C-alpha cells in the first residue's frame, strides 16, 4: 500500500514539475455587465406619465353667471323692437321658430 502511494505521489510530483513550465494566461479582464437601470427607470417614468395624462380631468368651462336674452317683440304701436334682458338663468325659453308652429 505504501509502495502504491509512493508511486502515485511520485507520478503527481512529476506532473506538478512538468506543469511548472506551463504558461499561465494573464488574469482576464472581466467586464461585469452592470444592470441597465435606465430600462426600468424609463418604464416607470412612462407609466407615471401615462397615468398622469389618463387621470387628468379635462377642464370644464364654467357657465357664465349671467345669461343675456335677446328677443324680438312687437310693441303696442305694432312695431318690432329688440328686447335685451340679463338673467342669472333661463326660466322661460322659447324656441325662435315656435311662432311657425302657432301662426301657420
Amino acid at each position, binding site marked *: 500500500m505504501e509502495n502504491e502511494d509512493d*508511486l*502515485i505521489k511520485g507520478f*503527481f510530483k*512529476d506532473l506538478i514539475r512538468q506543469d511548472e513550465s*506551463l504558461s*499561465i494566461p494573464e488574469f482576464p479582464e*472581466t467586464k461585469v455587465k452592470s444592470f441597465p437601470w435606465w430600462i426600468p427607470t424609463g418604464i416607470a417614468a412612462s407609466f407615471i406619465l401615462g397615468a398622469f395624462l389618463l387621470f387628468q380631468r379635462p377642464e370644464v368651462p364654467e357657465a357664465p353667471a349671467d345669461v343675456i336674452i335677446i328677443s324680438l317683440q312687437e310693441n303696442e304701436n305694432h312695431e318690432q323692437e329688440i328686447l335685451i334682458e340679463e338673467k342669472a338663468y333661463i326660466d322661460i325659453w322659447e324656441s325662435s321658430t315656435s311662432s311657425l308652429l302657432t301662426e301657420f
Partner: protein
Amino acid sequence: MKHSELENILKNYHREAFLWSRQCCGFEDELAKDVLQQSYLKILEGKAKLRYPEKVKLWLFSIIRFTAIDELRKNGKWLPIDDSFDLVEEENEEVEMDYQKLLMRLSPMQREVLLMVFYHQMTIAEAAEILQIGLGTARTHYERGKKKLKELIETSQTEAENGK
C-alpha cells in the same frame, strides 16, 4: 462581498484555478481559458455566491468543474461517470510517460479525486464536497483510481523499458 475583494481572491487563486480548469477540460488549454473566464464572470456578476469564505478554494473549484462539464457537454465531449470506464488502448503509444494521457484513462471521478488530493493537496472530504458526492463514494473512487493509475504507470514503465 465587494467586487474588488472577489477579484483579489480570484487573482490569488488564478494559477491553481487555471490548472484545475485545464484538468477538468481534458488538458485542453483553449477550452480551459474559456471555462475560467466564464467561471470568473459567474462569480463577479453574482450568479455564484460565496457563502463560506473559509471554503473559497472548494467553491471556486466547484464552479470551474460545473462550468467545464457544461462546456464539455455542449461540445459532446462529456463522458458519463462510470467506474467501469476504460479507454481503448491506442496503437501508437508514446514510449515516454505521458502523464496527461494516463490520467485521461481513468474515469472522470477517479481522475478528479486523485488530482484534488495529490495535485491540489486537498482532503478526500474536500474532494467529495466539490464533486457533491458522499465521503464513502469519494473514498471508493480514490482507492479504485489509485489502483488503476498504479497499473497504468507500471504498464507504461514496462513498455518504456522494453523500448516499445
